[in-house]
């Protein structure tokens, strides 16, 4: 195989096609629109359904309908679109059908802007639609990783009958990088035994469990599957963690930018390393808990006001010192900003008992006034 120059949004679209995607439904929204445009010619070229829906509400419910037939199906969108899709996602979760959603994250809340951000962390990892359910959320940091994760996400979603979210910062959707495409898989011909298809024995896919006991059984069944996911599907990457006294925790673009800062800091002799969670849900809490016992401090870096920070604090359980640095609203941190934080923490960590977010907000005062 050869490495080619791919734009992130088109790369995940092609990766999905090669994974045997059977239908794509979407709606234009920056910064993911290139994926929709790519699918509009690529899917019909292969004789597969593509449809631009009337809205993200329409798109996710078309995905829902197609998923009930057992087809490999996906959509892609960005924050304002994911908010509209939350209703459908909750129904899809409760119906226990697999789908893949790519969220190309932009700045917000509200209409916000169209520049890269990590504002959707809580919505995707902790929130989602109403009710008792979890979904897999994987956050790549490069175009190649986006390709590989999207390609494999269909298998994960089908294995656990769950929603698989590929969450990429707008920057990854928009940038071009060399990437190697995986081989083209055949479209699956078999119909899963749970799927509707119009046949002799009647099959029903619904999210209604009118008896509370039945809904509870469903929720417990989903929770047991989630425990399997937590056991089997935790993913992360470690960089320069040998002998590290400070650990940075950052995902996606923030993790990638932090890596530049870590390299510079290491060249200056500061013992710092990086943990880059790839699975945000399930979160690598065991790893963070173990790291907390080995280092003098953790710096969480995000492109939001501290969402993953709460998960890190929960995993650390006070076992080490935690600080936070974030840029929000679509502002991307420079490696220099993170390097400054590393240098400060290596000399004089903030240890006056304040919440890391409070201390960070104080440092941000010059910007926010």
């Amino acid at each position, binding site marked *: 195989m050869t490495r080619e120059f791919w734009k992130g949004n088109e790369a995940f679209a092609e990766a999905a096609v090669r994974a045997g995607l059977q239908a794509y439904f979407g709606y234009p929204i920056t910064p993911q629109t290139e994926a929709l445009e790519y699918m509009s010619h690529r899917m019909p070229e292969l004789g597969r359904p593509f449809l631009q829906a009337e809205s993200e509400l*329409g798109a996710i419910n078309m995905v*829902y309908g197609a998923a009930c*037939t057992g087809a490999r199906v996906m959509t892609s969108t960005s924050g304002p679109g994911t908010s509209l899709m939350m209703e459908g996602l909750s129904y899809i979760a409760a119906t226990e059908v697999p789908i893949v959603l790519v969220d190309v994250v932009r700045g917000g809340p509200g209409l916000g802007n169209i520049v890269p951000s990590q504002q959707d962390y809580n919505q995707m990892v902790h929130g989602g639609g109403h009710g008792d359910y979890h979904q897999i959320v994987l956050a790549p940091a490069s175009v190649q990783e986006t390709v590989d994760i999207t390609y494999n996400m269909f298998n994960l979603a089908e294995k656990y009958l769950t929603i698989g979210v590929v969450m990429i910062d707008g920057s990854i959707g928009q940038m071009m990088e060399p990437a190697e495409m995986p081989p083209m898989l055949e479209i699956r011909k078999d119909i899963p035994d749970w799927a509707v298809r*119009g046949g002799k024995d009647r099959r029903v896919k619904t*999210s209604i469990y009118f008896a509370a006991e039945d809904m509870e059984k469903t929720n417990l069944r989903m929770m047991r599957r989630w425990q399997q996911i937590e056991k089997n599907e935790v993913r992360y990457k470690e960089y320069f963690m040998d002998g590290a006294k400070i650990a940075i925790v950052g995902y996606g673009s923030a993790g990638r930018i932090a890596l530049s800062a870590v390299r510079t800091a290491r060249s200056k002799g500061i013992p710092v390393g990086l943990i880059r969670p790839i699975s945000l849900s399930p979160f690598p809490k065991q790893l963070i808990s173990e790291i907390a016992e080995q280092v003098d401090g953790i710096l969480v870096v995000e492109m939001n006001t501290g969402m993953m920070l709460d998960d890190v604090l929960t995993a650390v359980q006070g076992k080490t010192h935690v600080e936070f640095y974030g840029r929000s609203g679509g502002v991307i941190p420079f490696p220099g900003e993170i390097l400054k934080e590393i240098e400060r923490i290596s000399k004089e960590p903030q240890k006056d008992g304040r919440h890391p977010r409070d201390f960070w907000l104080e440092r941000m005062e010059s910007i926010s006034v």
Partner: protein
Amino acid sequence: MAIADIKNMEVVYERPKTLINKITSYCPGCTHGIAHRLVAEVIDEMGLSDKTIGVASVGCSAFSYEYFNCDFVAAPHGRAPAMATGVKRVLPDRIVFTYQGDGDMISIGTGEIVAAAGRGENITVIFINNANYGMTGGQMAPTTLPGMKTTSSPHGRDVEKMGYPIRASELLSTLDGASYIVRRSLHNAKNIRKAKKAIRMAFETQVRGLGFSMVELLSTCPTNLHLSPVDAMNWLEEKMVPYYPIGDYKVHPVLSEINI
């Protein structure tokens, strides 16, 4: 009459195979039962039960999948046409129909139904218009008649403040993608027979790949109208039919050649 005679009698009326033998959750006198039966009879007569996938909506008919003996999916409120689109695009040789009430289809689901009709989506929509939100206890619907009292328009629908009803058939018939749009009423035997013929034509539209079809069925909700089933039927004829005229609003030319 001797028992032997009964045994030799010809069966002229029985439960359609596409209806499950089950007590429904619908109130006594509600026309959902009639509408279900008509749809099931048409599916039987056309031999489609093994290739049909229904899409239930939200409202009293949320449980319609419990009563039809064919594959079903249950859509979020108003989203049945979108969900049906997803099913139909992946399985274009199957018959896909939605069964939706007025609150579902022309209030919360207005976007989805207009878009599906505009696209000429090759699905069939059975639209139950009983002028109120039945399941939640009789609130004002987009189809509630001017002056009509409901639990959320206790002094009657004041059109100055609450606006006018939406006539869905007339609205959708303006769309090029719509191929068969008709309104029928379920208030007496004659009209019920006509309604069945219309449902047959709607499914014929889909079988022939002609695009979007919808049958609006003027219906009753005796419980929330606080009327007996018979009085509710009279209300349907006297109040609903004049506001929502029975008629063919859009018929694809090919369909006019079909004789059923």
